[in-house]
């Protein structure tokens, strides 16, 4: 096969690196630059004069906003106005992070949001400091059809009507959002796959309609209201946690959680904060620890084997009797267990550690493949990477029965197949 390839002269290529690169590559590179640096490229040479204003990404990050607002609020507002005025064409991504700026009233933001939504924004992020009063989301955000990713901090949802239609939305992240109920509102997002809600208020009258929802994460101070998710039955990953130690969920709330757990699709990852385990444990009264121990000791506490459980991670292991029992139980009842990772809550000396590991190793294991990993205590900073790690894997089902078996220890369980 004699085919002559058109070979560029290397010297010609060296003369001008940029003309050599296709437009999508230069856009890609500039997309990673903060807006100030990207704006500077217009001075490089004439051909690039209009590349920056036509970039489909506008990322006004925290550093940028804080810097300008540090000079004066009017400089900041003027500069953002100028940037938007110079911009040509569509905006795929618009990030406005004013979390370092104190700037109510919000007329300017309304205008900038309008500009972004009018230009077909697909990926919208808006961050506002929690010290500022919440920003009331203008109605054009609800009507923005192009949106696929929406990330909001400290806003008020007061929709013009009771149905919020996000027809193309796949990822929704809401932190400190207040829903002002119109009796009963519905978030209709048929394509939504990932939903995170952190510290949101007013969700009791909310319903999320999305048959594709796979990833759901709800964190809050109070026991999360799960009623709005009862229509989601394709969940694969479920993270739940709350921090009010004194709250005891009532019967309805407990049964909603159980319903949700039972509706989970066959492969999933389950993350439950320690307080869940606490609330859903057996009815114990005064002598908590003793009752849990007795309960864990009875054969009825986990009668079915956990056939699908393959991986267990326990954080903040404190070497309490209840925790040891839980581990023993999981070892005994999970015939396909592959890996049991236990992370220490705090560093202990080698003698103590040897003692714990000997103890752990003695437990009989139903699964011949089960490996035990005993990890020294890790700082919280390693958690995020671990989490992404987990998302990439296939994960498991564990029925509500485990909730009842879990002890009162201060631990979080990652359980997945």
């Amino acid at each position, binding site marked *: 096969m004699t*085919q002559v*390839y058109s070979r560029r002269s290397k010297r010609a290529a060296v003369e*001008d*690196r940029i003309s*050599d690169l296709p437009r*999508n*590559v230069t856009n890609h590179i500039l997309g*990673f630059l903060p807006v100030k640096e990207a704006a500077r490229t217009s001075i490089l040479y*004439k051909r690039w004069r209009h590349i920056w204003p036509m970039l489909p990404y506008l990322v006004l990050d925290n550093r940028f906003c804080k810097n300008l607002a540090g000079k004066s609020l009017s400089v900041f507002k003027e500069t953002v106005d100028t940037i938007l005025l110079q911009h040509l064409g569509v905006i795929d991504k618009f990030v406005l992070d004013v979390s370092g700026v104190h700037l109510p009233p919000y007329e300017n933001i309304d205008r900038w949001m309008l500009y972004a939504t009018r230009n077909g924004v697909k990926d919208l992020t808006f961050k506002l400091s929690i010290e500022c009063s919440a920003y009331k989301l203008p109605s054009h955000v609800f009507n923005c059809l192009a949106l696929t990713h929406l990330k909001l901090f400290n806003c008020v949802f007061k929709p013009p009507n009771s149905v919020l239609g996000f027809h193309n939305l796949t990822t929704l992240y809401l932190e400190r959002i207040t829903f002002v109920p119109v009796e009963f509102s519905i978030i209709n997002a048929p394509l939504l796959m990932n939903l995170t809600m952190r510290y949101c208020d007013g969700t009791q009258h909310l319903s999320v309609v999305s048959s594709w929802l796979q990833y759901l994460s709800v964190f809050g101070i109070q026991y999360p209201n799960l009623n709005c998710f009862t229509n989601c039955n394709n969940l694969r990953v479920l993270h739940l946690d709350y921090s009010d130690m004194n709250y005891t969920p009532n019967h309805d709330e407990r049964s909603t959680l159980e319903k949700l757990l039972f509706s989970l699709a066959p492969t999933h990852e389950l993350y439950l904060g320690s307080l869940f385990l606490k609330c859903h444990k057996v009815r114990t009264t005064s002598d908590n620890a003793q009752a849990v121990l007795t309960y864990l000791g009875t054969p009825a506490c986990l009668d079915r084997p956990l056939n699908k459980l393959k991986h267990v991670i326990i954080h903040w292991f404190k070497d309490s009797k209840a925790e040891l029992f839980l581990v023993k139980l999981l070892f005994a009842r999970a015939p396909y267990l592959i890996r049991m990772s236990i992370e220490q809550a705090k560093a202990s000396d080698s003698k103590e550690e040897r003692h714990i590991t000997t103890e752990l190793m003695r437990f009989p294991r139903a699964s011949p493949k089960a490996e035990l990993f005993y990890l020294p205590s890790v700082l919280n900073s390693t958690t995020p990477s671990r989490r992404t790690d987990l998302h990439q894997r296939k994960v498991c089902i564990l029925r509500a029965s485990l909730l009842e078996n879990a002890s009162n220890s201060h631990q979080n369980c990652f359980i997945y197949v």
Partner: protein
Amino acid sequence: MASTTETKQKKMLILKSADNDEFEIEESVGVQSETIKNLVEDGFTFVPLPNVYTKALIKIIDYLKKHANKTDSNDEEIKTFDKDFVNTTFDDLFELVSAANYLHISCLMNMLCQTIADRIKDKSPEAVRKIFHINCDYTPEEEAKIRKANAQAFEGQFDESLD
């Protein structure tokens, strides 16, 4: 169906660079590139790459091999590999980025573009021009006018180095 995928995994591909060098790689390694994947789906096992030179192709094959064997345990190892991979001259980076773009390897594209962006981030326009081998075609008056229009962008200290 399962048996066909198994034999498929062992199938080999030949990649031919713009300098006419040939490289044999496993199909499962090659299909991380969308361009190669499309050709494989059309039944090709010989893939000429007229836009990718040998030097870049060797590095990219290394990258693909490393990332094809990604498991949970070698996460750190891959991170170190990636870090070394982009620790090179601008000329190499540009060569690699156009190759990655042609081959449609999105994770590699992201990594390279991010690296280039990070490395030109705090540089002065003069330094960036030298890095990109650009001859400025503005007259001094025009340049001053643009600087004035975007005054905010030209404030502060710049880095004049070229690496």
